[in-house]
């Protein structure tokens, strides 16, 4: 007596899902580390040649000012943070990452923009508190 092993369609769908999940997990282990993004920010004026920069991000981030460039019309500050590519969950609190940026010339009436060219939020109170 012989028997033929038959699988239902649901078995193959489930098998496909498991394979796909394994590929995703494998890829993440090999290349899904934190990614670096250009951050928008707020700023306040410390003095004529210094601005304070406030980046609001999640907990335990690596954030840096990576470039500052100036023209007669604008001051461009590029702030970057490393953020997780995948997240199981996080509180929605904004953690403060503060920097002071020295300028070559007086800020004057120049516009302050972020690394993506977006106008930065100008806080009228120190540290934007």
């Amino acid at each position, binding site marked *: 007596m012989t028997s033929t092993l038959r699988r239902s369609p649901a078995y193959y769908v489930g098998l496909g899902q498991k394979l796909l999940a394994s590929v995703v997990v494998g890829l993440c282990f090999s290349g899904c580390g934190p990614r670096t993004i250009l951050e928008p920010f707020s700023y306040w004026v410390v003095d004529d040649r210094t601005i304070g920069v406030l980046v609001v991000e999640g907990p335990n981030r690596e954030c840096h000012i990576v470039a500052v460039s100036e023209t007669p019309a604008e001051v461009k500050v590029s702030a970057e943070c490393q953020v997780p590519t995948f*997240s199981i*969950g*996080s*509180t*929605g*609190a904004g953690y403060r990452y503060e920097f002071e940026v020295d300028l070559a010339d007086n800020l004057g009436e120049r516009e302050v923009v972020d690394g993506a060219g977006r106008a930065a939020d100008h806080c009228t109170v120190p540290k*934007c508190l």
Partner: protein
Amino acid sequence: MVLRRVASLLLAASVGTLPSPTFAATVNLPSAGIERGGAAPVATYGLQLVKGTSQARPTSEEEAQAFSDAWELAEKNPDDFGYPWIDPTTRTLVLRSVSARGAALVTDETVAFAMASTAIEASRSFNDLESIKHEAISLRAEGIPDGDLIFKTAPDHEGNRVVITVSIASDRLFKALADRYGTDAIAIQIDPTGPGGSPATRDHDGNPYWGGARIGTPGKVCSDSFPWHIASSTGNALLTAAHCIASGGSVTINGSTVGSVTATSEENWSTVYGSRFYTGQTVYRGDVALIRLSSSFSAGTRIYRGNSTSSTSSPVVLKLGRYSQLDEQVYVGGQATGETGPYKVEDTEVDWWYSQDGPNVIVRNVVQASIFFGGSFCADHGDSGGSVFKSQPNGVIAYGTHSGFQITNCRIMYTDIHRSYMGLPGDVNLAP
């Protein structure tokens, strides 16, 4: 059962809906809306908008003495005279008699002034007008809609009326004022430099404070969710997420230290373990802290709507009187992303691991909801503590306080408002 409860909620909401107004002036004001900054078109209900009072301006000591004497005469005979005035063209002191006795008094030879005078008849007495002036400044205590926007009242000598100054245009307030005082005895001045006026926005809020705005806590930037009142008929507190201020401390809004959170008893968060009990309680109530405002600050009855820099708002007309249920749709209003949603409730009474915050940080007994097709941007860092609400024609229903998210799936967690008013002193400060 759920449907019946939702139906009863909607019915209750509809009872509070204002009747359709009959606009006597410019219209196009958004439903139930007011705008900080005063730029929006205004429904005035027949009330005149003025730039300020028109008061007598004496040009000599004689005129100053004459006007002072006329004012004193009206004060001593408040049912016989209206406000006096100096006509700037003819330089004549104008006396307004509102009774036969008043008319007789101005012809009395014993009443003399140091400048030329004339008498006219008027309908509103000094007593009537001063009563309006002294009453209108305190209308907030009577629960008049948006009565907290009134910050000054003053006599208008030329118009023989009272000018009521507000920081923001509000159609609900104007209607209430017109119904109460009529359209001749008062005029309205909008002065956005007053309390609660411009430049208050979601990211730079002003007193009285609204929900959905930026707050500063030690080391963090968050949002507040709803105005709150404790042992008072007026707003004196705000809600936010407990993880925003897990050890208690001071809260700042737009540069001012406005109040504080009492550790443990009025916040329920551990930075190591997440949700914990409020002091003396045995039920996890999500992630909410109570900000008690200092006596010089107050909470309004509104939340911000729109984007992260918006000045528009809606009144909080109801709180959800039960826990959130599956498939309900809510919006989140936070200072980082502004208004996002709709989010659809997927699970209730959820415990969730906030892995980014630590290996043991668990939020307990919260509602999980996700953006579904047609949604806008997701909530982000800085939106914590923000308003979770449902919109309806005459305002919003308070649903909860935003806690956290799984941003890769545009999924949020929030604490039911029902848990907050059961676990904390006080209640949502609803609009009258």
